[in-house]
């Protein structure tokens, strides 16, 4: 039970780890082994691994083609993808679509409710700032943060997780103890402490030239990478035992080559799925941080701080709170549905049986 999405820790119900069929997809190793716990359905490695090994690239590729066709069949995921792309494009081209700049003031329309007059679709605040425009800019900011969080934490988590899983030993131990430690801390509190400092820019960590989006993204990534690292570690632990890895070792391939050429490609499915979870979590967490005043700060518009700014007048100017929030809901729901579809598509063991 938490207030913000944590990193998609295996077994955590915060992450939408259950798809529409209700199949549990908690991946990677469990924090603890729970007998009788829904088992881990991380995509079983299929023939593609072996095919790859024996040079049958064709077969490996058809695996992806199969995944793609499965994804395209997932109507909800496809619909969400379309909606999400539309929303993101609106954000990306905010400068062209928005009728106003995010801080432009329209004194003729102060505290206007949602209306088509003067294109104030989402209304205006007490300064006459157009909330439709501000939301568009907010989407841009929030999406930027989420994008960087997912890229950063995926790269970091994958690197650490794969090395820990592959080599085991002290490296693995260190990683596991470290993530255990992180788990004992309330994630939001750690974020807040970190953000209170780094977010202000009073500590110059050489990031000074970066915008605050990137600072916030960095802080979030520091929290989110451990989840991915655990997942990847779990996958690598089981992959390590596979014949083709043994074969590659026996034939004298170097460790790095084995990791990147043989094992990583076979872990891509769960990694991609987890990346979507991280992205959704990052959007929610960033909005919460910004709402509390520790994330993206005004005047930069982010969906969270727009809501915070609207809060004072929300009883009368409800639109200031409702529209930015709805935007978050739509974005996160789309991402989760896409993640759901991806999981269906990328998990070959999962055969849907329809009633």
């Amino acid at each position, binding site marked *: 039970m938490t207030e913000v999405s944590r990193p998609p820790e295996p077994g955590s119900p915060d992450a939408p780890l259950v798809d529409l069929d209700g199949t549990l997809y908690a991946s990677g190793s469990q924090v603890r082994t729970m*007998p*009788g716990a829904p088992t881990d359905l991380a995509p079983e490695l299929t023939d593609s691994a072996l095919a790859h090994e024996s040079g049958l690239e064709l077969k490996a590729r058809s695996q992806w083609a199969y995944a793609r066709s499965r994804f395209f069949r997932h109507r909800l995921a496809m619909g969400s993808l379309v909606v999400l792309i539309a929303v993101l494009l609106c954000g990306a081209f905010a400068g062209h679509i928005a009728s106003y700049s995010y801080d432009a003031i329209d004194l003729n329309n102060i505290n206007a409710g949602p209306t088509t007059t003067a294109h104030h679709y989402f209304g205006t605040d007490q300064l006459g700032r157009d909330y439709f425009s501000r939301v568009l800019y907010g989407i841009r900011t929030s999406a930027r943060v989420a994008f960087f969080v997912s890229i950063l934490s995926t790269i970091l988590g994958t690197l650490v997780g794969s090395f820990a899983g592959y080599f085991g030993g002290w490296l693995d131990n260190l990683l596991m103890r470290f993530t255990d430690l992180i788990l004992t801390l309330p994630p939001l509190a750690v974020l807040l402490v970190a953000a209170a400092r780094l977010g202000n820019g009073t500590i110059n960590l050489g990031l000074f030239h970066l915008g605050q989006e990137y600072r916030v993204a960095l802080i979030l990534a520091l929290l989110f990478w451990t989840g991915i690292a655990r997942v990847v570690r779990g996958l690598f632990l089981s992959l390590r035992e596979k014949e083709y890895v043994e074969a590659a070792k026996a034939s004298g391939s170097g460790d790095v080559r084995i990791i990147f050429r043989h094992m990583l490609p076979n872990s891509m499915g769960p990694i991609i799925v987890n990346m979507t979870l991280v992205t959704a979590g990052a959007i929610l967490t960033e909005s919460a941080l910004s709402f509390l005043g520790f994330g993206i700060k005004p005047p930069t518009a982010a969906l969270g701080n727009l809501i915070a700014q609207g809060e004072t007048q929300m009883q009368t100017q409800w639109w200031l709170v409702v529209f930015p929030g709805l935007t978050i809901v739509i974005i996160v729901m789309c991402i989760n549905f896409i993640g759901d579809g991806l999981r269906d598509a990328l998990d070959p063991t999962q*055969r*849907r*049986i*329809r*009633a």
Partner: protein
Amino acid sequence: MPEPVLSIRDLAVHFTTDDGVVRAVDGVTYDVYPGETLGIVGESGSGKSVSTMSILGLIPQPPGKVVSGEAMFQGRDLLKLSKKELRRVRGNSMAIVFQDPMTSLNPVLKIGFQLGETIKAHHGSEKDDEVKDHVIQLLRTVGIPQPERRFEQYPHEFSGGMRQRAMIAMAIANQPALLIADEPTTALDVTIQAQILEVLKTAQDETHAATILITHDLGLIAEMADRVIVMYAGKIVELGDVNTIFAAPRHPYTIGLMESLPRLTADEDWLRPIPGQPPSLINRPPGCPFHPRCFLSQGRARCREEEPPLRPIHAGGTGVHLSACHFAEELEGATSKLAEPTVAEGVT
């Protein structure tokens, strides 16, 4: 001939999946007579389990569905019973022993409880201590030492063999008229298998139940069964008396199964598996389902075009002998190595 205990007519069971309709059981007809042991053999996926579980309503529905057929048991068609009536049959007059004793018992409930529950489900009026005595008696019957202590234990405190004994005890708890043993020994060690077979025989003697024994193991059939059904791709391809089938198999698939057994005395290669894969149950090829793998067919058009009916064969032997091969008569003279006594002993 006595009245059959169970009489299945033209049973068909389908599973609806993403990829299409799986015709897991496709028109199966057979009888089980009182006191006999009927063996069902066939490759994995041939529909052995589904053909029996479906009549008790034990296949997942959906995706499964019994699309046609009749299963007369004690004067009633099981397929027409209401859920409630069917429930009264299960575990009572018809009971099942499943394949994997490691997963077939509930891990969080005590053995004694799980057995007692079976009795109470059908004899609600029995008092708790009566039930307990009854359960302990059952545990003793199946050869579980210290039944009083075992009564209080959880499944994980039992070995695999002990669990299967408990499963058998559970199955005979209500004196069933028909016992279905679905690969009762497959999951066990070879040494344990022999013991469990003994327990199964004891159970049969105790209850005088007719038994359906599902297995991959022709050796087991040779030892336990009176009559045999050979299933392939959801259909019966051969049916007959156990001696007849072993002495004079009249379907190429049955011969293939026998050939693929390890032979102790033979000087040929040890194993000769049937070439090829079982057909897709979704898009059944026309003609004989076995034709792509059949050594007898030799590309004959009839095999590819016309589905062979299950028809009576006269190959000597006693009782009814049926085969679903257009050219069964060409197998005249074929006999299985298993029919030779020395080998039959070796295989069990």
